[in-house]
């Protein structure tokens, strides 16, 4: 039973939220969100004490170290995301808080299962469970013309990707004659063209989910229009889930055949880093900027993926942790500023350092973390990923990544410039809801603690990644 305690917990929470909504009266039902957030917090706590368990459902569902690592990440990220979204303004978010949280929890359940899935069918179902609520959530402000447009784009690209992925999985099943990933992994070294075809095609789905170039194109539009705290979560949690699934499908137990994926991953990494960073350069909307920068970050993680080694995997996991705090934090600060200024344009950040020095400092820390500067988490993340890639002999990839880091710093520093160098357009502090402030604070803590002392997380990541190979 303990093997899927967390999933059961989320399921239970779903029910609680559902019935709370039924019991709720009135227009403001944000407290339902509070219940959900509290529940996720509890579950996050539980996840810390849960220990790995033997596989269940005939090996279909595994609760190993990797799964647990990922689940802690999802839960923590979800908690921060929910916390940031609790005080979202607008009637829709007040009245339909229960729907919002039901969908988030449903998606979360999908992620949790995805991290444990070692069967194609379970994987596919979990994947869809994770994805479908996201389409809805991204258009949650359905009266806004951009929100629904974003949802539609997300949905269309997502559905096509799902179809392509399913098409690929059908080949995988056909070639391996089973849906058990363990068997698939053993079959891969045989080099059956159908299996390779299937896995390549299935990569599309993951590529879409993690937003690798050229499957990334929905990202900026969706991020721009969707509710920001949701975007903060969307930008990290499903990505992490996508990576964990990638590891499960492409790495776990395939042995030396991992070499097959190195060129593919390296290609995608190159394209993603270059495109993400370059396209971020001209952005004036803070969320779009972060969206493209997020794409570039996926590229960096793919560098670690391209290393196709235990350390590479571990470093991607660490990167994900660092990315959760850095990226979510950045989005949440954007949300804070946008709520106060009514604009997500970078101009809204002008003189932030003089208006709200602490908020500006937090943003600076997040940006530095994303830029890979020492003393904050992102530094170690990039460093370790490069290290792993270099150890795998991908020096050119490391060099490319390092050079484009400079490009990335350029646009991060532009934001810093707006905050610190330019004079404020208006005076007075930025209004900041307490829950949002708390979420930002959590991210700051994460970024700084990981920046100063990344060791435990790195070690844990190395530990959980080792059995994959």
């Amino acid at each position: 039973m303990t093997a899927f305690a967390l999933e059961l917990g989320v399921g239970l929470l779903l029910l609680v939220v559902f019935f709370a909504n039924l019991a709720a009266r009135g227009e403001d039902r944000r407290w339902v969100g509070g219940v959900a957030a509290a529940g996720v917090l509890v579950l996050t706590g539980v996840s810390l004490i849960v220990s790995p368990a033997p596989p269940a459902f005939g090996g279909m569902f595994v609760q190993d170290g990797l799964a647990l690592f990922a689940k802690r990440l999802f839960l923590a990220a979800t908690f921060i995301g929910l916390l940031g979204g609790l005080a979202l303004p607008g009637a829709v978010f007040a009245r339909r808080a229960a729907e919002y949280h039901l969908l988030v929890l449903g998606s979360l359940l999908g992620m949790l299962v995805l991290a444990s899935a070692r069967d194609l069918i379970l994987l596919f179902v979990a994947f869809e469970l994770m994805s479908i609520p996201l389409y809805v959530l991204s258009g949650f402000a359905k009266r806004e013309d951009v929100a629904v447009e974003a949802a539609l784009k997300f949905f269309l690209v997502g559905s096509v990707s799902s179809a392509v992925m399913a098409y690929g999985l059908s080949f995988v099943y056909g070639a391996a004659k089973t849906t058990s990933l363990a068997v698939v992994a053993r079959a891969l070294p045989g080099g059956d063209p159908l299996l390779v075809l299937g896995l390549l095609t299935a990569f599309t789905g993951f590529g879409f989910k993690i937003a690798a170039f050229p499957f990334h194109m929905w990202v900026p539009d969706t991020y721009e229009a969707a509710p920001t705290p949701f975007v903060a979560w969307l930008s990290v949690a499903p990505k992490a889930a996508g990576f964990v699934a990638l590891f499960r499908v492409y790495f776990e137990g395939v042995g030396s055949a991992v070499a097959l994926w190195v060129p593919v991953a390296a290609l995608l990494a190159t394209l993603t880093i270059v495109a993400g960073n370059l396209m971020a350069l001209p952005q004036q909307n803070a969320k779009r900027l972060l969206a493209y920068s997020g794409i570039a970050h996926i590229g960096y993680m793919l560098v670690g993926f391209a290393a196709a080694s235990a350390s590479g995997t571990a470093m991607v996991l660490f990167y994900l942790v660092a990315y959760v705090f850095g990226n979510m934090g950045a989005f949440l600060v954007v949300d804070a500023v946008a709520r106060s200024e009514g604009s997500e344009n970078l101009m809204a950040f002008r003189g932030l350092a003089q208006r709200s020095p602490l908020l500006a400092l937090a943003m600076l820390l997040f940006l530095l973390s994303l830029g890979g500067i020492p003393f904050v988490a992102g530094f170690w993340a990039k460093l370790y990923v490069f290290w792993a890639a270099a150890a795998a002999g991908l020096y050119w990839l490391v060099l490319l990544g390092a050079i484009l880091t400079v490009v990335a710093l350029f646009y991060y520093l532009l934001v810093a410039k707006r905050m610190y160098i330019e004079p404020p357009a208006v005076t007075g502090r930025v209004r900041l809801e307490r829950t949002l402030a708390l979420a930002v604070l959590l991210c700051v803590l994460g970024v700084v603690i990981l920046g100063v002392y990344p060791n435990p997380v790195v070690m844990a990541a190395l530990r959980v990644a080792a059995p994959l190979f």
Partner: protein
Amino acid sequence: MTAEAIGFWLVAAVLLATSLAVVLTPNLFHAVLFLAAALVSTGVVFLLLDAAFLFAVQLLLYAGGVITIMVFAIMLTEQLVGERLRQTSRWVINGAILAAAVFVGVLGFVVRSARPARPPAADRTADLARALVGPFAAPFELLAVLLVAALVGAIYFARTED
């Protein structure tokens, strides 16, 4: 040429024709109907593959479910617009080239794969049922959550009062 072969070629022809019609016909309503036909043809393909149960599922769920929703959706939107939804195509050549390229890509892998012989047929509907509640209980449960979530989402979008 066996009867099965003749059946296959016939069904394949119908399936491809209706599929093409789905993507080419200018009338959206007709497209949906052609889709229904294509789905039914697919069901027949399932029959040829000795999966009678799936034929039934295909007819019920797709033809019954999907098509109905689609028709409703078309009616709804048409009603709102007050005119018939016609659709034209964009960048037909580009789309064709790209789709053909993907097809060729898949084909490239397929032709290089082994050609297994067709094993004898057996009705395995009962096994199917057992598998769903046995080894595949977990995805089955999850599917339920998925459907609920989709339902919640769909209702959220479709409702008009807020």
